[in-house]
């Protein structure tokens, strides 16, 4: 009888031991949680879908290769509904509730700016992707999108080469248009470009031929419009209707399959600044970006049946930058992680080669951008 008790006691003790050791094992393998705020609904939802796919593909790639410091990455994803208020709430929840090591995500200056401000208040690193201009005080935020300055000066560089020196601006009413206009005026002189005139338009208007007719009286050699999606496509369509055979530059937000579909049948020459991921076949083999993009595209293709695009690649880079930082610090400490990301040097991503520093939290150069145009219903590289 006693023997039986002894056996039972032994079994219980053993199983307890195994139990605790397996939890110990799990603790060692506890994932790094990365908070991910993304617009899955609302007016930015077209963007959110690409961002989400890019992040998930990259996390899977890293985890398949053994994770970071032997620990897998885990995304904690929340939908910000394209609203800064919701994004703020989710950022707070990610930090205090989910205890993430870093936050990333979300589109447009306003929404990602809200995330940045929460991250800096709580001193948790954030890697955002938008046209948001970082201030010096936001020491915990990185923005791995190509800066708006590059997206506007890159096409100007092309214009200068082509002898185009008189252009007109057609900007959307609102902060984005103000931003585009200001940056265009700032950079135009350095490329010897004269801005003949400027018109504004309502992005919801069903027709913009009025503004185009006014600009046409100035005889510009090209039109620059810092706008994305349907309004950008409508401009191209209205220019074709009026027989205006001059190039139309739109924002770098348009390098998506959705936008390509909208302008595929339009004869107007549309120029979209973008990242190298959109034209991987044109890259030289020695370009460090090529290897990254090819691998990312392969994984993306396997999962979604299409190659990655500008937005999914950009989001994947945010994951890589955080992962690289974790690899260097080997700790969960947010200040150390911030310092590690800030010291990223020569790190090749889909968007270019990142060289971060305390004064540069964006990391890429203007030469990391390329110019796309539409040929026979497909993207083609300009120049």
């Amino acid at each position, binding site marked *: 009888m006693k023997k039986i008790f002894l056996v039972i006691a032994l079994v219980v003790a053993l199983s307890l031991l195994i139990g605790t050791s397996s939890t110990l094992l799990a603790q060692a393998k506890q994932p790094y949680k990365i908070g991910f705020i993304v617009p899955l609904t609302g007016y930015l939802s077209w963007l959110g879908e690409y961002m989400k796919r890019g992040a998930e593909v990259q996390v899977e790639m890293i985890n398949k290769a053994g994770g970071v410091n032997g620990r897998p990455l885990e995304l904690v994803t929340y939908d910000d509904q394209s609203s800064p208020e919701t994004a703020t709430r989710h950022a707070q929840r990610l930090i205090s509730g989910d205890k993430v090591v870093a936050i990333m995500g979300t589109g447009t200056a306003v929404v990602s700016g809200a995330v940045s401000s929460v991250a800096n208040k709580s001193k948790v690193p954030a890697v955002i992707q938008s046209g948001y201009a970082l201030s010096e005080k936001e020491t915990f935020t990185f923005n791995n999108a190509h800066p708006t300055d590059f997206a506007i000066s890159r096409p100007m560089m092309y214009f200068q080469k082509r002898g185009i020196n008189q252009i007109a601006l057609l900007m959307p009413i609102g902060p984005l248009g103000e931003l585009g206009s200001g940056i265009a005026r700032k950079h135009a002189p350095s490329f010897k470009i004269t801005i003949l005139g400027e018109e504004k*338009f309502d992005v919801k*208007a*069903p027709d913009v*031929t*009025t503004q185009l007719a006014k600009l046409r009286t100035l005889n510009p050699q090209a039109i620059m419009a810092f706008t994305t999606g349907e309004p950008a496509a409508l401009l191209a369509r209205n220019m074709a209707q009026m027989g205006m055979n001059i190039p139309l530059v739109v924002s770098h937000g348009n390098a998506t399959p959705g936008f390509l579909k909208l302008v595929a049948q339009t004869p107007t020459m549309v120029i979209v600044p973008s990242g190298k991921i959109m034209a991987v076949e044109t890259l030289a083999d020695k370009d460090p970006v090529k290897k990254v993009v090819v691998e990312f595209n392969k994984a993306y293709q396997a999962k979604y049946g299409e190659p990655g695009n500008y937005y999914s690649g950009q989001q994947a880079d945010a994951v890589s930058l955080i992962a690289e930082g974790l690899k260097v610090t080997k700790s969960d400490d947010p200040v150390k992680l911030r310092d590690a990301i800030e010291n990223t040097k020569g790190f090749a991503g889909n968007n270019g080669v990142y060289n971060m520093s305390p004064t540069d939290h964006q990391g890429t150069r203007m030469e990391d951008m390329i110019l796309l145009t539409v040929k026979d219903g497909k993207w083609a590289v300009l120049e």
Partner: protein
Amino acid sequence: MGDFSHLVQFLFSGLTSGSVYALMAVSLVIVYKVSLLICFAQGEFFVVGALTMVTLVSKGLPMPVAFALSVLVAMVLGALVERVLIRPIQHTGVGNLIVMTIAISLALRGSALLIWGKESHILAPFSAGKPIAVLGATLQPQVLWIMGITILVLLVIWLFFEKTTLGVAMRACAENQLGASLMGISTQKAAILSWAWGAGIGALAGMTVAPLLFMQYGSGVMPMVKGFVAMSIGGLASIAGAVIAGFLLGIVEAYTIGLISSQFSDTIVFAILIIVLFIRPSGLFATTGRREV
């Protein structure tokens, strides 16, 4: 002599935008005439019609067949909405009904998102061909289609509501439910028909203007707002007034943008609305006095 082609282009631009507002306003007025209700889901019927047609055309159906089928789909949807959502609360007051139409609008927008996704879709113009050039300005041929279809719709509506027993009966229901039912008119039948009509015309508006725009699940909001303004300027229940006000709105917008600044176009449009509401609260083209039934 200065080049004045841009002044003509302003007019064409106004006609293009105006055609979108006018057709939307017509569909709002029709619902109002038969149910004395401003239906906030009209923008969504507009989208459902256009996107159904996009799908049918992409499946290889000829344009006219796709057009007719899409109107039919929207009419069935409208009838269904009336039977399931409106009828149970129809005696609870106009306020509840309007809130219900807002709820329907949101529900339909959500459903459209699930069915057609977040992407924008393109519908080819009804007739191929180059833009029409006049004095150096250009107009898309689709705008002529919109005008033609608008006139046709006006004719059909007029014939239906003035010349057929069913049409007269429907107007009677709107005027006086009890009186109409005492005369042996089925008010329920009239209500379901009026929703089918409203949804059908909303869808028709969407399909006809879709080639000018890009269509996605949220595309109904702008035309709904502008259509509502045109409807208010034109007199809530006047179909001809809605058409004229719609085109006027577009033209005023275009010349404001062209001659003053695009930043003022909304301000001026709403200023006109306020002035009209002050001077003629029932709208520029409203028929005053009691309506004869």
